[in-house]
């Protein structure tokens, strides 16, 4: 039963893994070009496991100081604080080692898959773990391949493979729109994220959008509860 849930989580990542692999390959190539050794390139993927932060770090490598790179990684990943907060009620009562393990693997994609299952009523820590592991394996194996193969890798941007990510989140978002309040929250979040994208770099626009839209949703829901 538990093994089945882990496998179901693993299988849920199959549509996204090609996209993650394409980016892992590019990260591996760029990291080597930026002067990181093969071991350092692979170690970063193994320990950090955060695509956007790793790409940014590699872009800054040699031009910015270490503390600034670390601070940038923190800011880029601040959105995970909100995702952790959102999944926290579902992990209440789980042993600390499960929380620690699941938090290590929490990414945009695995959070999205896991929370969708929790909202549908059949989520579990095992499913979450399987989703984390599928993306972790894809990211690290493709990092290794990119770092070894180097310049042989073609530009994945040609095929528009990066579209897999918004399409995945679209597929997970649409079922939540049956609830009118969900539609309001989604619209508010999308508008704020797009409107502030140009002047809030480092994914800070996502943090602002999520906080504002969830706040609007909570306020409307509270107002609705009081008027009933």
């Amino acid at each position: 039963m538990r093994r089945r849930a882990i496998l179901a989580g693993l299988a849920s990542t199959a549509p996204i893994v090609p996209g993650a692999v394409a980016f892992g390959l590019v990260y591996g190539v760029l990291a080597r070009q930026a002067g990181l050794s093969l071991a350092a390139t692979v170690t970063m993927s193994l320990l950090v496991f955060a695509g956007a932060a790793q790409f940014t770090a590699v872009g800054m490598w040699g031009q910015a100081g270490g503390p600034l790179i670390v601070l940038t990684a923190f800011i880029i990943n601040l959105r995970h604080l909100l995702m952790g907060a959102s999944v926290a009620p579902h992990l209440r009562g789980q042993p600390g080692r499960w929380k620690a393990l699941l938090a290590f693997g929490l990414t945009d994609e695995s959070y999205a898959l896991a929370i969708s299952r929790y909202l549908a009523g059949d989520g579990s820590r095992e499913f979450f773990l399987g989703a984390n592991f599928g993306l972790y394996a894809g990211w690290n194996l493709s990092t290794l391949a990119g770092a070894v193969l180097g310049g042989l890798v073609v530009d994945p941007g040609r095929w528009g493979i990066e579209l897999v990510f918004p399409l995945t989140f679209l597929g997970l978002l649409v079922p939540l729109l049956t609830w009118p309040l969900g539609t309001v929250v989604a619209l508010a979040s999308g508008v704020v994220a797009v409107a502030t994208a140009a002047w809030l770099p480092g994914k800070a626009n996502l943090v602002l959008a999520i906080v504002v839209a969830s706040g609007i949703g909570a306020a409307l829901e509270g107002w609705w509860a009081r008027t009933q």
Partner: protein
Amino acid sequence: MGTYAVILGMALATYATRALAVFLLSRRLTPGIERFLGHIPAAVFAALVAPPLLAPQGGFAPGLPAVAAIPAAVVAWRTRQVLPTILAGMGSYWLLRWIVG
């Protein structure tokens, strides 16, 4: 800072963002905060959907990906599954690129 010190710093900073709320919010919270947390998933998904489709370079400039997302959204509504949504979106995108040239 040495290479591995930077990597370790990044790892700790990233882990902090992921683990902090998971451990701190382990007790029951006020209804207002619970409501706030309940709206985060839809807000996260929309925030991850909209910018790459509508503002790929930062400014508002919807292009072929935004158009391809329309049939993808219809398929998402009908099937409520990720894989058909991706296939519809990528298929439409490649078709559009072939037509536009």
